[in-house]
């Protein structure tokens, strides 16, 4: 398994054209490959030191993969691979590229994957595991379907790879998408992009109030994971917490004190995070109508805002910085939905209640509605796309 760097990248097309063995969608060899990868990761103790690797291993467990295969399968139409997919993965997370690659392979495509330019330890470990598996003879065909590339800012290579791929996948940041979009792709080439998003949570105050202590702790533990995963900086990280069925300060205080206690035990933040939060808070004090007072010595800053702003771009905290809004009833969601909103985490209400509002709303807000604890679960459906299906084409045969 080779990582293409510098002008070696320019040899990929040639190399690709030389191999002719082709994968099918849900190819058996792909399924065995991922199963073997899982088994190997399971044996490696070192991965326990890296949350993202542990997460990946857990994700690769056979039970989960079978479910994903089942959900991805199209019962109505025959699906064939697209050809070659150019994955531009986030550069500030070590392993996110894998999930994009996974669906590319399940769909039978050749995958050119741009790796993060930084040498993360977890990335190195993962690549060495991958190498061990892929170098087996039976997986030769898989290795012909993966081209890792690594380069610093370079128009040249992005242009080259964009020039012949059949699909370009750009894993966000608005700025990244805007600048890569200036680089043309072929007329027949597909593109999907994952722009900057904001996520929300809706909690039922009454339901929370009547939980017993054990249930409360269980909920807090799950919600903590949603709130603090990758420093609250993922597009799936809840930024705004909406309360329905009551806004009692005592109940909310109880909720946040429990989150605070739990976070203090589990979460460590760098000094710069404290300064970032402090500065954000001062800025928000000028720009937003905040009704509560903030204790600067707390880990969670929560600002409850009286009037919901039209522009939600600035409602983006990090390192434990949350906005809180009294929605009163779920129907009021209609007034504040915004096309930037991606994931809606819920507790105490049903997904149907949320779905009903979302479906009738004129914005195209909300692509995921998930119970507390599942904000960051990735099941192949993202930003409204079914990744497997997006990476295949239908062959209509009547």
């Amino acid at each position, binding site marked *: 398994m080779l990582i293409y760097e510098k002008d070696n990248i320019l040899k990929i097309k040639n190399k690709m054209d030389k191999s002719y063995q082709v994968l099918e969608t849900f190819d058996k060899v792909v399924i065995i490959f991922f199963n073997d990868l899982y088994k190997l990761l399971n044996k490696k103790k070192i991965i326990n030191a890296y949350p993202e690797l542990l997460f990946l291993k857990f994700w690769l467990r056979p039970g989960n993969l079978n479910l994903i295969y089942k959900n991805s399968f199209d019962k109505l139409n025959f699906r064939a691979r697209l050809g070659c997919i150019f994955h*531009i*993965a*986030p*550069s*500030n*997370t070590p392993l*996110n590229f894998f999930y994009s690659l996974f669906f590319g392979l399940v769909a039978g495509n050749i995958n050119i994957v741009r790796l*993060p*330019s930084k040498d993360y330890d977890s990335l190195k470990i993962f690549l060495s595991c991958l190498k061990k598996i892929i170098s087996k003879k039976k997986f030769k065909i898989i290795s012909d379907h993966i081209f890792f590339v690594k380069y*610093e*800012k370079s*128009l040249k290579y*992005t242009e080259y790879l964009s020039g012949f791929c059949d699909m370009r996948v*750009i*894993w*966000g*940041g608005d*700025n*990244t998408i805007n*600048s*890569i979009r200036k680089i043309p792709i072929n007329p027949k080439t597909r593109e999907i992009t*994952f722009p*900057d998003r904001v996520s929300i949570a809706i909690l039922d105050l009454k339901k929370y109030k009547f939980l017993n202590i054990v249930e409360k702790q269980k909920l807090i533990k799950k919600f903590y994971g949603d709130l603090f995963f*990758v*420093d609250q*900086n*993922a*597009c*799936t990280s809840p930024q705004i917490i909406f309360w329905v069925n009551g806004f009692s300060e005592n109940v909310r205080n109880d909720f946040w004190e429990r989150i605070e206690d739990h976070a203090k035990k589990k979460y460590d*933040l*760098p*000094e*710069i*995070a*404290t*300064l970032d939060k*402090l*500065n954000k*808070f*001062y*800025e928000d*004090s*000028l720009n937003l109508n*905040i009704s*509560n*007072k*903030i*204790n*600067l*010595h*707390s*880990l969670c800053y929560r*600002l409850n805002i009286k009037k919901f702003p039209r522009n939600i771009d600035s409602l983006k905290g990090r390192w434990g910085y949350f906005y809180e809004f009294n929605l009163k009833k779920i129907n009021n969601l209609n007034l504040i939905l915004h096309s930037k909103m991606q994931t809606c985490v819920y507790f105490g209400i049903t997904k149907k209640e949320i779905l009903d509002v979302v479906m009738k709303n004129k914005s195209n807000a909300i692509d995921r509605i998930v119970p507390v604890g599942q904000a960051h679960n990735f099941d192949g459906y993202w930003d409204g796309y079914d990744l497997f299906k997006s990476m295949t084409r239908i062959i209509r045969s009547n």
Partner: protein
Amino acid sequence: MKNINKNKIFDYSKNQKVKIFTPLIVSKMKFHLQKNNNLKLFFKKINQITQKKSLENYPFMPVRLFKKFKLTSINDKDIYKIITSSGTSGDVSRIYLNKKNAKDQIEVLYNIGSSFLGKQRYPMIILDSKKTNQNKNDFNARRAAVIGFSIFSKKNYFIFDEDQNLKLEYLKKILSENKNKKIIIFGFTDIVWNFIQTLEKTKLKLNLSNCILLHGGGWKKLADKKITNDKFINKIKKNTSIKKIINYYGMIEQTGSIFFECEHRYFHTSIYSDILIRDKMLNIQKFGKEGIIQLLSIVPSSYPGNIILTEDMGTIFGEDDCICGRKGKYFRVSGRIPNAELRGCSNVNL
């Protein structure tokens, strides 16, 4: 400030200081709160504003705010001078001074400086070019420092040319003209470093034994090169005969009430200033423990810079008992707070 004996600014013990310093800060902050609407809004939603006498509980201004907002407590027509930070990153702090504030800065700087350097004026060799100090529109921190420290100077000698190269012959000439006289060499720390390196390369042993090196700021660039204070001093001692080196630490938001390093290499607070160290949760850190540096100064009056939270890390080692004999807190600065690596879904590399 009238109550302060300016010949004894390092002689106030903790108990004596609190009686003068705290009310001055409190009254200045009260004034700013009346005059500055932004400040009022900043502090409005913090739940521990207290009128208690302890300044530890008083809300502070993170220095980044001076980059993002125009923060003044005076009318625009009374603005006499705007000092900008010499930041190269695009974001620049702007400090709005009226005449009084500008005058206070110089007075305080003089009182602090002369306590270390003596009251006479010296020839001053400045590690900069004349040109960068002539542009009147660009009143940045570097120029402000040169002008500020010129109060100790009998005559300024700029020994760099326009391209910031050393004018070696000129330097030799100055040195021979001022033989046996005390001379101050003044420069930003990173420029001093470059200067010494140039001397090292030329292999010229200049006689600088009559010079006092006064330097400060610019530590960030040296920290990036992993150059510590020890390394810095050793290099100077190795390549020059300079005996006295004085490092200063100051923030553009609190120009005037700067901190000089004593003979034992600790920065000292004077009656004009104070320091607190805070941990990650912004609680007060004990002496001896490192944390975020908060600085207090009674100097700012035309802008709300009396209580600021810096982006530097440091440690207080004690109060009133430094072996150099000066009262006040003594501390060291360990450097800028490191930037964190951002995880998340966004791509930063194109």
